[in-house]
């Protein structure tokens, strides 16, 4: 079965357990949500899935094969892409080169990488930004470039780490449309990590809730919205405000 999975992943930094026996699966063409309060271990899990953090227990598997010991660039070449909180663009390079770098990293010639980068910018809807220096972009455009960069080479999976942070409602809606297209048109499996719970409830087929490094709930948006445990975990963190009732 095609899936990217965390199977019983545990991460312990001397004494402190950041993740304990976390199971999670991302399927092609589907959007999986990962939510949880601050410090729940969401980013740590993304780091484990993309090879930036070695798990102290359990394994990351791609279509049933363990990815143990692979470096981040090797994992990327297997078709598991990610974005970062805060963009992490190559600031001094033009937008087009930001995408081209990934093409080159995946083994394309510069010519082929530029061609794909142009097509990708077009697909994401930011072709007009191609020659802008990445460091001069506004926040929202930065996110789109980061997503375009991660989509180079048509990865099987993409992990989006808080792509909507700091966005207005309208901008978040645009982003939601883009994320849907990534799953539907590219058949890419999406893992969406977000603080904006409303966005996650709206977009995701399946949601995993982390708290203090452990999975406390999984299910479809309706189940998550109804869950007492989730409500409890978010108590005191303005969860009520973040979980609008009207979201379909």
């Amino acid at each position, binding site marked *: 079965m095609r899936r990217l999975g965390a199977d019983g992943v545990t991460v312990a930094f001397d004494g402190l357990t950041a993740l304990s026996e976390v199971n999670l699966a991302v399927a092609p063409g589907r959007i999986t949500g990962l939510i949880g309060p601050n410090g729940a271990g969401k980013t740590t899990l993304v780091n484990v899935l*993309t090879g*930036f953090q070695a798990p102290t227990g359990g394994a990351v598997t791609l279509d049933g094969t363990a990815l143990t010991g692979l*470096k*981040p*660039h090797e994992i*990327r*070449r297997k078709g598991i*892409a*990610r974005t*970062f909180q805060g963009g*992490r*663009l*190559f*600031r*001094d*390079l*033009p937008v087009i*080169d*930001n995408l*081209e*770098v*990934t093409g*080159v*990293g*995946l*083994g394309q*010639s*510069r*010519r082929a990488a*530029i*061609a794909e980068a*142009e*097509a990708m910018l077009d697909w994401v809807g930011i072709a007009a930004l191609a020659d802008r*220096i990445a*460091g*001069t972009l506004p926040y929202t455009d930065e996110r789109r470039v980061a997503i375009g*960069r*991660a989509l*180079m*080479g048509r990865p099987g999976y993409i992990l989006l780490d808080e792509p909507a942070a700091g966005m207005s409602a309208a901008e978040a809606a645009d982003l939601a449309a883009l994320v849907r297209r990534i799953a539907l048109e590219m058949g890419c499996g999406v893992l969406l990590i977000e603080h904006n719970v409303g966005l996650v409830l709206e977009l995701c087929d399946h949601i995993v809730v982390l708290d203090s490094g452990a999975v406390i709930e999984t299910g479809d948006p309706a189940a998550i919205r109804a869950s007492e445990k989730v409500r409890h975990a978010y108590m005191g963190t303005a969860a009520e405000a973040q979980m609008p009732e009207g979201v379909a």
Partner: protein
Amino acid sequence: MSARTSVARRTLATPLILSALLIVFALLAWFVGSKPFNQTIIDIFLRVILVVGLYIFVGNSGVISFGHAGFTCLGAYAAAWLTMPPMMKQTLLPGLPEWLTALQLPYWAGAGLAALWAAVWAALFGKILMRLSGIAASIATFAMLAMINTIYSNWEDVTGATSSVVGIPIVRTVWPYLIAAILAVFIAWAHAISRAGLALRAARDEPTAASASGIDLPRERLIAFVVSGAVMGMGGALFAHSIGVVTPDTFYLGLTFITLSMLVVGGMGSLSGAVIGVLFLSVLIQALRWLEAGVTIGASKFALPNGVQEIALGVVMILILARRPSGLMGNKELGWRRAGSVAPDVSGQKQPDLSKGVSK
């Protein structure tokens, strides 16, 4: 779909303009025709080779290397081994293997092999060093230089230890040095526009995002290290042929600091900066030397006191770096049109270590 011209065509202006600049210097030497001036121009070309060689690694990776003079040392001694008359080698370097003692190659073949020899050692050292980042990598390159210097200063039979190895055929015309300098510029350009060069420059500021983009950073760094080691080796060989004598200390701290200063003053992130830095500081040094020697104006002779050259050089370097922390060229390259490929407000941030924390 792709209306963009190829990367090579878009950037070819840079090495062409730099080559033209170097040719102007060579023609100057040719027209003036004085022997000391000829040697001055040769020295400039040698520094261009070495600083451009240094740029290939430092400029693209952002890792400051204090060790590249070591590759120059390797290249210079390789040239001595390969081109000295066998009789001289027998007396001065009795420890050389027989086949090497018997061998006497023309200087250009020797320089080619010297480049290869330096590249092999760069690959061996680099395999270990390129895993390190930042200041750890810089210190490790310095350790490498110290090792090379110690070995060459003590291996009496093979390197003549600290005494001078003489009898290396001297090449006095500027043209071979000009050609080698232009070759170095084109090698640096070709590397910079290659996939390896692009990947390395991206990783310079965002190593994390680069590895998430599929880039194998140690590998890209190693490629740059080996290419730059080869250019430094070639420069070392020609250095040996320019004066006919080598000692290990010629290729130690003094050379390390002058080449690094020229690169920093010119602009670390730019190939044009590497060449401009050499030309600018070399002309300055030369002008100060003339003034120290004395200039006759009318009836009176005007001369600066000795030592002013070093002091003035230091002051000028500090002033330039205070005004332009990312060097004369910043991250820009010379082009036909002023291709403002890097916005001025971010250009300062690309510079690693030295310029960090300096606000404009």
